[in-house]
């Protein structure tokens, strides 16, 4: 990690954390746990424009910052949003790498659905099977919200002047081997 990496991660994490915080103030969820997920825009941006290490660092920092701002750090809600963000981020990254022709909106919708599935798996440890009741509602809401997030990300990525970050070395194995 050099200084450029650190500053990119810091800027995007704070941006994502603030987006998530403002969103949670504006929206009263209809179904527990349902929200638009605008912070996901930053994850998608990182997948398309940055390297794997940036993506992971941004997800870790932004979930922590958002929960500290909301006062839910290390509570049940924190573990749910953390697991959802990590699983959907990793899944979107893998799908993007595996199928290069996949469209951004589809990627975003799949990310939103997997976010809910991961949350449900973690919720099982806290409250048992009860959360399954919300799953069809959550997935139904994930499709339009994933669409909105996808269109916004597409627009942002098209407009962004930043060149894709070292695309030839952008590899997950490099991250794990240091």
């Amino acid at each position, binding site marked *: 990690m050099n200084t450029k990496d650190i500053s990119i991660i810091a800027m995007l994490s704070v941006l994502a954390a603030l987006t998530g915080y403002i969103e*949670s103030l504006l929206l*009263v*969820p209809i179904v*527990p*746990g349902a929200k638009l997920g605008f912070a996901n825009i930053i994850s998608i941006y990182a997948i398309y424009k940055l390297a794997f290490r940036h993506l992971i660092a941004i997800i870790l920092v932004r979930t922590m910052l958002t929960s500290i701002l*909301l*006062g*839910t750090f290390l*509570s*049940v*809600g924190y573990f*749910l949003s953390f697991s959802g963000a990590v699983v959907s981020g990793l899944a979107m990254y893998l799908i993007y790498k595996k199928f290069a*022709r*996949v*469209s951004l*909106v*589809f990627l975003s*919708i799949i990310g939103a*659905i997997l976010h809910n599935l991961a949350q449900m798996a973690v*919720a099982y440890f*806290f*409250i*048992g099977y*009860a*959360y399954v*009741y*919300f799953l*069809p*509602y959550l*997935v*139904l809401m994930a*499709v339009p919200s994933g669409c909105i997030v996808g269109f916004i990300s597409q627009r942002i990525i098209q407009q962004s002047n930043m060149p894709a970050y070292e695309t030839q070395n952008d590899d997950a194995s490099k991250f794990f081997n240091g």
Partner: protein
Amino acid sequence: MRKNEVIIIMTIIAICLTTVLLMKYGATAPEKKVLKVTINKEIVLERQITSTENTNVDLFLPSGHTATLVINDGRVRILTLPEEICPRGICSHTGWIKSPGEIIVCLPNRIVISLH
């Protein structure tokens, strides 16, 4: 989006819509319902409620606070909890539940209130 992608998304939507419709209209409304409350996956209350019952039930939480359930005309809701144990108040925002299968969840306190 490409054609295959639209098909995948449509399939997911169709499965979810079917599940939601089955959950909403598949079950018949029985005369007597069973109210079940679990805290930390342990059953703390399980009993029948009738459509004429009008009572309040206190639940004692592990955090030392008390949550109040209101049972009225075969419906159940939870009163707003103090903000320090339930910051976002999603459980009390759920409002009344009345048909079997509906649930109220309070994640921060790990309370699940369900009707069967």
